[in-house]
């Protein structure tokens, strides 16, 4: 039986062999691997890129105090970006499943329409949910727009739900029973996270404080992005990456407020707009900044 970590290592190995930079998780709370700068900003502009990383993805509203065998506040996504998407991208993806020991001739695989959209990021794409024996194990998306910008080059984004995939391979009914590493179950490693964050997000998070934090981060992001001047000769050193961190902070606080039940449906639309506005502004600035950048990047990846 492969452990959780072995599956992760094999997938990373597989994608490393296909020219991906293996990144470590981003160190700010995000709701999905897509939000990391490695995806959100890197897909902009014409430069090819290939990257894979495991990103803990926090969704406060999905927390279940560690009671529900299938739902997690924080789950792990393996995020793969292939920019541009190679013509055999689906074959490559299926190869990664074989690499973790899934004999596809013995299983049922379907690609069912699932178009992805992230309103807070001004991003959308078209693709599928990948169903293996009735279980959704991955999301497969051809990005079309990010930060409200039509992408020059269309990347494929592959997102693996690692806990689900592992539970499937280990034949476990509860995510907490999967083996993370020999001698350690998922529950051993993560149960406390699930319990304590559920208590915080649903019961103890202080709503006025969260709103204050939201406003502070929004203020900082807005202040910075307004200072970006496309005509300035010094724009290459402008700190857009730290600006984007402020946007990510806002997004996570919004999710927490939402889980806390502090945002009405009407307000929701407004707050999503606020986050989106920041994300779009950063994306536009980034696209401008990188377009004029000297090719100092690492050797162009991809094919």
């Amino acid at each position, binding site marked *: 039986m492969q452990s959780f970590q072995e599956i992760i290592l094999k997938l990373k190995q597989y994608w490393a062999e296909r020219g991906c930079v293996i990144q470590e998780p981003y160190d700010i709370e995000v709701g999905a691997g897509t939000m990391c700068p490695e995806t959100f900003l890197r897909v902009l502009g014409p430069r090819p890129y290939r990257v894979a990383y495991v990103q803990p993805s926090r969704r406060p509203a999905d927390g279940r105090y560690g*009671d529900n*065998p299938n739902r997690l506040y924080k789950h792990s996504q393996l995020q793969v970006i292939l920019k541009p998407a190679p013509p055999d991208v689906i074959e490559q993806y299926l190869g990664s499943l074989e690499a973790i020991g899934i004999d596809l001739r*013995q299983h*049922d*695989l*379907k690609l069912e329409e699932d178009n992805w959209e992230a309103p807070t990021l001004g991003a959308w794409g078209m693709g599928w949910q990948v169903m293996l024996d009735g279980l959704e194990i991955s999301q497969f998306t051809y990005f*079309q727009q990010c930060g409200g910008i039509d992408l020059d080059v269309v990347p494929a984004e592959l997102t693996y739900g690692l806990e689900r995939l592992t539970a499937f391979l280990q034949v476990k*009914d509860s995510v907490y029973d999967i083996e993370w590493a020999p001698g350690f179950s998922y529950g051993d490693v993560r149960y406390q996270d699930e319990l304590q964050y559920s208590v915080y997000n649903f019961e103890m998070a202080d709503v006025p404080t969260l709103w204050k934090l939201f406003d502070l981060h929004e203020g900082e992001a807005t202040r910075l992005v307004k200072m970006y001047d496309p005509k300035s000769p010094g724009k290459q050193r402008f700190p857009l990456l730290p600006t984007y961190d402020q946007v990510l902070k806002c997004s996570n606080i919004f999710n927490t407020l939402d889980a806390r039940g502090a945002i*009405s449906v009407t307000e929701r639309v407004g707050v999503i707009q606020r986050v989106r506005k920041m994300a779009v502004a950063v994306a536009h600035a980034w696209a401008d900044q990188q377009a004029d950048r000297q090719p100092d990047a690492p050797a162009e990846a991809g094919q």
Partner: protein
Amino acid sequence: MKPAIVETPGLDSPGIEDISILEAGPALEDTIEPVTAEPPTVTQMERHIAVDVIDTSGLANRFLLEIGTEEIPDWMIPTALENLRLLFEKLALPHDSVRLDATPRRLVLRADGLPLRLPDRQERVQGPAKSAPAQAVAGFARKQGVLPDDLILEVTAKGEYYTYLKKVPGRSSKDILAEALPGLILNIYFPKTMYWTGKGGPRFIRPIRWIVALLGEEIIPFTLAGVRSGALTAGHRRLGGREIAITCSDYEQRLRDHYVILSAEDRRQKIVSRMAGTRIKRDDALLETLVYLTEWPQPIVGNFDPQFLELPEEVLITVMRHHQKYFSVQDASGKLAPQFVAIMNTESDPEGFIRRGNERVLRARFTDARFFWDSDQKKKLADRKQDLAHVTFQAKLGSYLEKTGRMMTLARELGGDNHAMRAAELSKCDLTTDLVKEFTELQGVVGGLYARHQGEPAAVWQSVYDHYKPESMEDTIPRHRTGQLVALADKLDTLRGCFGVGMNPSGSRDPFGLRRAAQGVVKILVEGRIELPLLDLLEGNQELIAFFEGRARFYFRDHRGFKYDEVAAAMAAGRSNLVDLEARLVRIQNLRPTPDFEPLAASFKRIRNILEQAGFAGGGAIDASLLEAGPEKDLYDEFQRTAGQPIESVISKLRPRVDLFFDKVLVNTPDAAVRQNRLTLLNTLLKEFSNIADFSEIVTNS
């Protein structure tokens, strides 16, 4: 079979494609008159085109187009195929049969009997008028690359003109297709498209990965989105080969060898026949989805723990159907059995991996549902009402709590009892439950089930359960009057609210489903036999009244099959009480085939015209002393005898009198008093029967 028309061999002239007007192919015919259309008088007609008709059926002229893609959303495929057929027909290439097929990964068009080459054509290029100076004529000839002597004079409606009859050699089908297919493929309609080769690149529903384009044994060469057309197809993703050489004749069989059943009908039959041994709950929409989600379908039966049967069937079926695309299974008594049928896209499951995998997924889903069901019970439905203050119905129309209040008032106004009021009060409370948040399609149903579980009387919980019904024209209306009134209150409130703040549906935009809501109101009123004055319930909003009239017309015409003019006639005589409207429509429908009906309807139309032309203002009584003996008096007497009786029993007696009246009597007589009296007679007659319908709306042949 349409014989194809082919030119006599020997007229081939390569290089003619360089002429710009030809580049767009046959579609240019609307700017250049084809020679077949009404040939004008020709003064000199030496250049007839020799045309032979030959049978071109046979292997050499089969056409095969396979657009190989990544998985296309199942629901878009049938429309895309129909569209592909139309685009092909628009090429106007002669052919016999056309056949369209698709799997998730390929759209296929096959046609037989294409000509190798189209016949030569003459195109008529009109030049200057006969009266034009010689230089102009010479200039025109030069432009056409001929001598002035090569022009002919044609007589047209506008006079005589110099004309050049240009002979255009027929192009080969292969060239036409090679040129047209890339554009044709990209023109197939999909609701949403993507690009994949880079910004500005071609758009399609999903990336195109291979193209087969064959005419007979030859490849029709073109490149689209970086893909070169060829003769290699691809089999099933996991069971078949990736590059399979095929010909027009072995194509379908080769696919089958590689685990692809090309025909949707064959896949459907395979699924149905392999499920024949299991008592599945029939579900044609789900079957259709699965037919277009698989290339090699194979049903597999799985089981679930019978303890989940404690959950309501509605919840279990929704999980199976909407979330897992499984057929549910019934036992001999029609109750849900702890089984399901999944449709695999593969040949078999020898190790049982697939069955067990699906069973585990379903168990997890059911466990979730039970978790939500249990946690929802911690707060009763009635106690959730205040929470609705935080659920927005629509920004301008307030929260669901406010909507609930309006629905309760409306339910009362419509004649609802205390049960209806209670049901209206509880109807939206399930929006705050976890189960509905997870399975939104179960709103209403979950509320009803919770209400039952929490001891509400049947009239109440069933009304909550049913209040979104009917959700389509095929759906049934709520099962009893209480539920019908609650459903009416819900829909009318939404319609009044949205129209009140100007959110009317426009064109295809109808985000609040107002058409469906109004259609539901009409259906409930008619089929629930609820005699409420609909138009009085619309707060005098003229747009909403017109909207409802449109919906009522649609319902009676398209759903109930009444004829257009019957609906117009009946609605002109009253359209607020839809039960009454329906009864009158049935009467008109029954009367229509009787021999006296259409002539009488024609007479009524005539009467209306006469009254309109005379500017008749109505009023006044008939003065019997002014009536002329004969047809006029006879008509009056007949009318007196039959007045008040239903039209069905008087029509045969009345009609000959009316006919005779118009035959013999002049309405517009010079004597003003007599004329006025005659108009009054006609008006009275018209009035007598116009409470059923305005018969002058009936379209008659006479």
